[in-house]
Structures are given as structure tokens and as C-alpha cells.
């Protein structure tokens, strides 16, 4: 006898992600989930742009790493609060760990939450953690062929940060290959070509983030009040 069930095996994870999304909507906090390979420059991107972003926004970072507090230490050195999640081996941040971490974040006085995922192009792309947008961070040394090799990430992403453009010449990076592949996966995806090291191109990324914050939390409209009413 066949018994029809139709049970979503990921329902528990989806429920947690939905409750995080509702919480962040209530608190008017924009959450960006940064996903990219180890060494692509996720932390460097935050280090390079947090000083500018914090002029008008209050920023918090959730840092995901298998081991060590190295990235979290770098973020804390910029002066913003950073909550470290050491996964101990898990290759991505699941929504339950994000929900747990958020209990220790002062959301009422936060405008912008960066979730820096564990370095990995595969697993984090399948996990909804209640973020407003996934950001695919790709760096030139990884090669110009990665979009079609890891299509899910670029399908899920709301923008691409292409880091280390200062190395374009030496790496002979075929920029047109990357854009042709992106066009095959997702039309109209913004690509921010920048170097977190030299700072070139960072202004456009910062403007994009500020634009999303304006939509979600109505700020920055004036200098940060730091604490929302």
C-alpha cells in the first residue's frame, strides 16, 4: 500500500529562516550573507568598507569560521561588534546557529548585519538563514570559470563582488568569460569589480549596501542616531 506524504524534509530549517526574517523586519535590520571561497577576501572586504559604512550606519558582523578567532579579531579591530561562530567543522552557517547568535546581538541599535559565512562556494549557497540578500564574493585568482561550476551560488546571489581586480593583468583573467557565464545563470546581477586591498571600486559596493539599508530601515537619511527608537 502506498501512503502519500509530501513532507518537506527541510521544513525545520525554512521555519527558522522565516522567523529570523520576521525578526529582522521588525527590528529593521538589513542582513547580508557573504559567501565565497576561503581567501577570496570576505573579511578584507568588510575591513575595507566598514569604516565608511559606519559613518552613517551601525554595523554588526556575525563571523562564521570552522576554527580560530582570526577573522573575528580583524573585524573587532575595525571597532564594530562581532559575534564569532566556530562551527568546529561544519562547512556553512545553518539558520539555527544564526538564530542563536542573534539572541546576543543588540538588534535595536543595529542597521546593518553582515553574516560572513564559512569559506565555501557550495553548501552556504543552499542555506536560507533569513538574510535579505546573498552576496557572492569571487576573487580573480580563483579563475574566470567559476560561475558555471558553482551555479547555485550565483543563482541565489543578489550581487557579485569581484575582488582583487588589481591582479587582473598578471592573472590574465578573462573578464568577458565571467560576464558571459553570469548572463547564462542570472540576468541583471550587479557586479562590483573592486580591490579591498587598494580600495578601487569599493565606493559602488558601499553605495549599493546603503541603498538597500535606506529601503529596509529608512537610513541613512541623517547621520546615524546609533540607537533606534
Amino acid at each position, binding site marked *: *500500500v*502506498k*501512503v*502519500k*506524504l*509530501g*513532507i*518537506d*524534509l*527541510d521544513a525545520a530549517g525554512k521555519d527558522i529562516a522565516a522567523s529570523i526574517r520576521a525578526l529582522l523586519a521588525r527590528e529593521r535590520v538589513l542582513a547580508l550573507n557573504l559567501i565565497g571561497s576561503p581567501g577570496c577576501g570576505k573579511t578584507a572586504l568588510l575591513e575595507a568598507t566598514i569604516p565608511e559604512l559606519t559613518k552613517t550606519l551601525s554595523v554588526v558582523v556575525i563571523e562564521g569560521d570552522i576554527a580560530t578567532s582570526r577573522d573575528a579579531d580583524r573585524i573587532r579591530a575595525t571597532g564594530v561588534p562581532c559575534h564569532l561562530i566556530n562551527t568546529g567543522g561544519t562547512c556553512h552557517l545553518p539558520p539555527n546557529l544564526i538564530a542563536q547568535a542573534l539572541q546576543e546581538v543588540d538588534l535595536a541599535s543595529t542597521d546593518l548585519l553582515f553574516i560572513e559565512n564559512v569559506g565555501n562556494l*557550495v*553548501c552556504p549557497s*543552499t542555506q536560507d538563514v533569513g538574510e535579505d540578500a546573498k552576496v557572492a564574493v569571487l576573487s580573480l585568482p580563483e579563475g574566470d570559470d567559476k560561475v*558555471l561550476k558553482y*551555479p*547555485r551560488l550565483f*543563482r541565489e546571489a543578489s550581487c557579485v563582488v569581484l575582488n582583487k581586480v588589481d591582479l587582473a593583468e598578471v592573472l590574465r583573467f578573462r573578464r568577458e568569460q565571467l560576464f558571459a557565464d553570469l*548572463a*547564462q*545563470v*542570472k*540576468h*541583471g546581477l550587479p557586479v562590483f569589480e573592486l580591490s579591498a586591498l587598494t580600495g578601487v571600486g569599493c565606493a559602488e559596493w558601499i553605495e549599493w549596501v546603503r541603498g538597500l539599508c535606506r529601503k529596509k530601515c529608512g537610513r541613512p537619511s541623517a547621520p546615524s542616531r546609533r540607537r533606534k527608537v
Partner: protein
Amino acid sequence: VTAVHVAVGGLTHVEPENLKFWYEELTKGTRLAGSALLVEKRPTQVQCRKCGREFSVVANSFVCAACGVADVRLATGGEVILESIEVEE
């Protein structure tokens, strides 16, 4: 229970053979031991936002054949669903 039917979308990173291997391992010594896990990998289905055409994604191309642009809404592809079980009375 003699069989368990699971459907996985084309965008999930679930590999059917791997799933079957672990199902067999994890059900050993339980009431599910010896039951068959049948995994149906479903194609990713999308709908073009411009012309409304529905199509399956082949070779990771989300480009609509009519419009020539990958501006699509995902219909199915990310799901992992326990569809049904077969039981002996």
C-alpha cells in the same frame, strides 16, 4: 515499510547514490531496515519573467530560448521532499 520515495530538486546538492548509501547505513537495526529508498532527481523548472514560458534548466543555462535572457523565476529545484512510503499490511 518496504519503500520510501524521496524527490530532490536539480539545484539541491543531494546526490542520490550518496543518500541511498547513508539511508541503508542509518536504517540498519531499525524497522526501516531492508526497505528501499527511491530517489527521484527532478529537473529544475523555471518560468521566464518576460514571456511567461516555462522550461527545464539544461546544463545550468537559465536562458529563455524565446527571449534570450536568463530572467527567470524558480518554480522547482531546491526541494527535498518525502513523497510517499510503501507499507505491507
